């Protein structure tokens, strides 16, 4: 199905299905940075309000204590860690798209990678809040860092939580550097197109980019290097996060399956989030010429593939629990399937295993509505996947005397919703400040400009 696009095609001359020209790219991308309209402010207001509620809830929790969140014995971890892992997972697709696909020279990545990278950074920034939100004494969270101190105390390098600190901070720094490096030529374009104080700011941020051949050569090399550096992180970060669970004893956690299982799930949910962000962007900024059906189709295929792999992992998980013969594992599994939280498990199976199957049809893969619904379902499903790993497993572990049911409170729910608001606030801000499509790389995919009088006057 074709995208309905009532707007005149951005390409002058009326050439049939013409590729945009370099000039079109500049114009269209820079147009996304134009003064925001009312809809944008309305969205910002909603997001800001929710974020404020989240901040108030967190303040309340810090002031009165962790009891404000619905945690208990045995669920000492619950929705905060669920959402933490969720955001880390979201943060995966960006690096995958920008680095791995770059190295594999998958050209279709060009129009979405900038948005995906921004999403990665913001998702990691959101995820990074959760260890703080979650800690009983967040004001001492710096104890987890290996800083020199009088007491010669180091963090415990055996603890997966310390691995987390390193994995995530590494991931955040590499992703941020990679993101910034990729932005430099585009900021230069922005600088050239803007005036006044904006020009000065963008001028500073563009680090003196002139577009000289030497700079391009360095840029390419650096970009390739960072891509190579970021690629192993795609696998490592979520593997390390998965070890928070796999290294513990808890039945339902203690499994070697977790690292690949988590990485795959992360890519799965990451692509869903990319679609959730890119589809509205494409619609509101009229970027149909750049984010084409081909792109949607590719992403949908990746969702389908990762979804099928995830289904395989689910089956593995069930099988290994059953086949292990371990009483605790089997009891935990049986309870997850039939106990209080079975609805959550059913939701997860539906969203992650059933709903992506529709993407086997080409028409579904290019239908924005279907894609959007499937992506939202996948995000819900993936949130519940982490919930199902954490809450029911803890609720029915080794010791029957302390089995219990976790019930969310207003405080922790508000903080969770607030984290989404924080993410969207960052993303909404980003799309109005920085080019959400890579001008440079989009240009690479279209034919070089021919001699044409219409290009005179553009840089």
């Amino acid at each position: 199905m074709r995208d309905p696009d009532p707007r005149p095609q951005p390409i002058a001359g009326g050439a049939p299905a013409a590729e945009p020209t370099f000039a079109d790219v500049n114009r269209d991308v820079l147009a996304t940075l134009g003064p925001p309209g009312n809809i944008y402010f309305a969205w910002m207001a909603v997001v800001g309000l929710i974020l404020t509620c989240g901040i108030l809830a967190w303040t309340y929790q810090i002031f009165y204590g962790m009891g404000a969140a619905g945690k208990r014995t045995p669920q000492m971890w619950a929705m905060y860690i669920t959402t933490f892992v969720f955001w880390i997972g979201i943060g995966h697709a960006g690096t995958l798209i920008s680095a791995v696909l770059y190295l594999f020279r998958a050209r279709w990545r060009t129009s979405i990678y900038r948005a995906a990278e921004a999403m990665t950074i913001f998702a990691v920034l959101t995820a990074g809040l959760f260890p703080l939100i979650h800690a009983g004494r967040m004001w001492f969270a710096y104890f987890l860092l290996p800083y020199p101190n009088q007491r010669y105390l180091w963090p415990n390098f055996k603890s997966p939580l310390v691995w987390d600190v390193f994995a995530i901070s590494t991931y955040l720094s590499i992703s941020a550097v990679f993101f910034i490096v990729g932005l430099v030529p585009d900021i230069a374009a922005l600088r050239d197109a803007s005036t006044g104080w904006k020009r000065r700011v963008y001028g500073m941020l563009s680090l003196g980019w002139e577009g000289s051949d030497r700079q391009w050569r360095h840029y390419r090399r650096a970009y390739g290097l960072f891509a190579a550096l970021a690629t192993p992180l795609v696998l490592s970060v979520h593997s390390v996060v998965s070890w928070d669970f796999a290294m513990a004893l808890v039945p339902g956690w203690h499994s070697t399956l977790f690292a690949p299982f988590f990485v795959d799930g992360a890519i799965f949910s990451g692509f869903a989030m990319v679609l959730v962000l890119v589809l509205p962007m494409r619609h509101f900024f009229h970027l149909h010429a750049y984010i084409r059906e081909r792109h949607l189709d590719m992403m949908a295929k990746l969702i389908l593939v990762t979804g099928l792999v995830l289904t395989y992992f689910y089956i593995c998980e069930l099988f290994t629990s059953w086949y292990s013969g371990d009483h605790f594992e089997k009891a935990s599994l049986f309870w997850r399937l039939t106990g209080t939280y079975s609805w959550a498990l059913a939701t997860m199976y539906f969203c992650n295993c059933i709903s992506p199957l529709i993407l086997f049809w080409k028409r579904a893969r290019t239908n924005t509505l279907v894609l959007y619904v499937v992506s939202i379902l996948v995000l819900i499903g993936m949130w519940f996947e982490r919930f199902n790993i954490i809450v029911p497993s803890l609720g029915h572990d080794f010791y029957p005397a302390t089995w219990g049911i976790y019930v969310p409170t207003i405080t922790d729910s508000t903080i969770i919703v607030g984290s989404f608001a924080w993410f969207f606030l960052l993303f909404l801000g980003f799309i109005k400040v920085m080019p959400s499509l890579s001008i440079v790389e989009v240009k690479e995919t279209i034919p070089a400009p021919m001699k044409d009088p219409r290009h005179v006057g553009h840089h």
Partner: protein
Amino acid sequence: MNRRDFFKIVATTGATAAAAGCQQATEQILPLVVPNETLVPGVASYFATVCRECPSGCGVLARNRDGRVVKLEGNPDHPVNRGSLCARGQAALQGLYHPDRFAGPQRREGDALKPLTWDDALKLFGDKLGAVKGKKQALAVVTQLESGSLGVLLDRWTQALGGRPRVTLEPFGYEAIRAANRVTFGRDAVPYHAFEDAEVILSFGADFLETWVSNVHAARGFARMHTFRDGKAGTFIHVEPRQSLTASNADEWVRNAPGTEAAVALAVLRLMLEGGAVADKRYAEVVAGVDPKKVAEESGVPLETLQRVARTFAGARPGLAVGGGVAVTGSQATQLQVAVNMINAVAGNVGKTVRFGPDHAYGRVTPYAEVARLVQAMAAGEIEVLVLGTAVNPVFTLPGGLKAAEAIGKVPFVVSFANLPDETTALAHLVLPDTHWLESWGDYAPHEGVMGLMQPTMKPVREGRPMGDVLLTVGRAALGTEEGKGPLPWPTFEQYLRAAWEPLVKGQWEETLQHGGVWRDTPPAAVTVSPKLERVDAAPARLEGPGDGFALLAYPSLRFYDGRSATRAWLQEVPDPMTQVDWDPWVEINTQAAARLGVRQGDVVRVSSPHGAIELPAYVSASIHPGAVAIPIGHHYAPYHLRLKYVPASGPTNPMALLPGAADAVSGAPAFLSVKVTLAKTGARRPLAVLQATHDQDHREIAQHVDLATAREQALRGSRAEHPNLSMYAPQQYKGYRWGMSVDVDACIGCQACAVACQAENNVPVVGKAEAAYGRQVHWLRLERWAEGDPAHPHNMFLPMFCQHCEVAPCEPVCPVFAAYRTEEGLNGQVYNRCVGTRYCGNNCPYHVRRFNWWNYEVPAPLDLQLNPDVTVRQLGVMEKCTMCIQRIVAGKDHARDEKRAVRDGDILTACQQTCPTQAITFGNLKDEASTVSKLAHAPRAYHVLEEIGTRPGVTYLRKVVRAAHEPAPGAGKGHA
């Protein structure tokens, strides 16, 4: 929002960046302006006294640190408890430091009590006494059981002022035992029961492990006779309609129809006689009217069971039969006790396990019939001044049918010496708060030959005055005499006490104080069975109320006794060991009955008897007799509990409100088992806080058992098969000590004393019902009940669970900051200052014994004075858990170092071990092969909980020994276990 709150919030928000914002505010400490020269800062002194939380009169050592008592421990020299205390004794400190204690005298003005000065209060009281002095029988004095000098002084005072004979009000007075002993032995006494010497105990509803007569003493004795040791283990058979804590410790619990205890006892007696126990015609006459077959039908106890019980008991050398717990005290109570006496006599136990001579102080309790007469006199307006001693609360503890509140309301002047507000002080005109027993001089003789001496263990917390002093002062004022003259010459009660004790101590006053009293052997009184015995009626107890109703079993709460301990929040929070319910009262309903009524657990049910109605949430149990419902006596609440966010039910919940006022004709006892109640669903719900998620182990072998024959065989064979070390790392090497503990599941009776002792020792906060119900209780030690077998007749095991101090501890590697770490002495340390509160350790602990500070738990003044200065008070957001009483380990090591030696076995006692009445818990050095704990860790019965996970715990459990057969003869059939 006021300015302060604003600043607080600003500071807290800023704390995301600034670390110090959330630290607790610095508190100012005030040193003693003029320090007592005997007081060494940081060194505890111990004062011996007597526990007065119930009439058992256990000896206590109060641990005083810097002028304040911080912990109570049993006096190891005291013959009643030998160093142990029950949960109520441990929690007495919360009565001492109770935030609701009266600050000073109070006077009624309208509906409220208003403070007044002691001088005014004494003058007021003196004037009233002066006015009533001449009138005959217009002054009444009601006190708790005072078997020592205060009782004598009170009697003297009452007599001098022309009052009615003093009434000793003990709601559970065991009058039926006395009545039966008058009939059978011609002796009005509650004898000494030597549980420790019995081979077989047969109990007809006597809940001797909970509240019956002297529970700590009984528990110690029971442990000695019953716990498996060197191949020997006693047998305990318990007959009761409900599976009480005592019943679940029985090797065979026989469930009878409520009210048929006497019939069952008589049938057992008859079968014993038929079995040729003794050839005495007199006994045959007693049971002439008893048909065991008919009894079996009526009581629901199979004839074979009766025969087996009779055979087992007759074969015991010696046995001990006891009977008559409060719950089964009805119109047949005396008949039951007579039957019990006969059983003991026939089996030859009298003089062996049932000893007259060291008679219990219960013999001095005023029979309930007298109490009822006094209440009638009050109702008739005959009493003008009513003096109520401390710890008596007739409005709450007397049966509702007596209408005590109305009667007291008719008394023109009611003086109460209670130091905490209760239902009775609400009717008092003048409250003269007595000092707490830990602040008072006194003495108490729990039984003949044991005279416990009480001394103030610290300065009074509030402006209370000793009741004896007040009575002497006002008595003299009313009589117009002076100090040193007249019938009340002593200036203070202390001087009276010293004078009274002089002949006993003969100048050794201080030594006696240190010792805790004087005890000597009392020669056993020879008693003979009365030559003329009458036929005993075996009819079931008469129950008033509709025929299709449920027999009401109102039983004294293990935690609250008659309600006098209920103000202690520790006891409210520690769950009832059987139901695992904390805070709320409940009505226990059989599963079938509940299904019939459509009642689920937590549904509020209206329980109506001909004398009243109360509303309680239902606890559905498969084990209680289908024709009965059971309600614990004693649940009531203090204003302090409201501050812990506890909202009590609006109406009365005490089952006493359902009982008739009339006394039993034969014994003069209140008729506890005397009504049938009807149940009606109210539609409301009040979910119970049940702290244990399930009693089903789900085949995880957390509490394990072994049958007696196997245990004997294993004991002969020697040590247990050790699990191989599966770790790829070398096992930890211990340079010095390796501390470890062992818990004998066979000895544990589930009394909760350890849990409360731990709470007292380790500054464990109280969190309130809602939080506890939501898995946020902070108890370092929790007592679990694990049930096996038929739910209607479960076999229960009690398991105290606390940090297992694993050698391969799952909590340690996951802690990112080394807050949880392994010490060199085999403990799992927890550094509160280092803890960030990731709670990873709490998830990874398979035993879930790690507790988190979800909030900053408030300890309102003056309860904060009780906090143990040797133990850190934990802050919001940190993990905590059992430390094996590290402070005691450090003190023990210091002590040993001062003496230039290593720590010896027994030098260090953990708080739980110290108080355990059955000595189920042992602590010691596992590296020392000669230490008890080391031997137990390698004993054949030893196991580790969840051993297969490979945590290698430092705490070893010993399997419960189940008596597969109750028959002394080999090859007998299997029992219920």
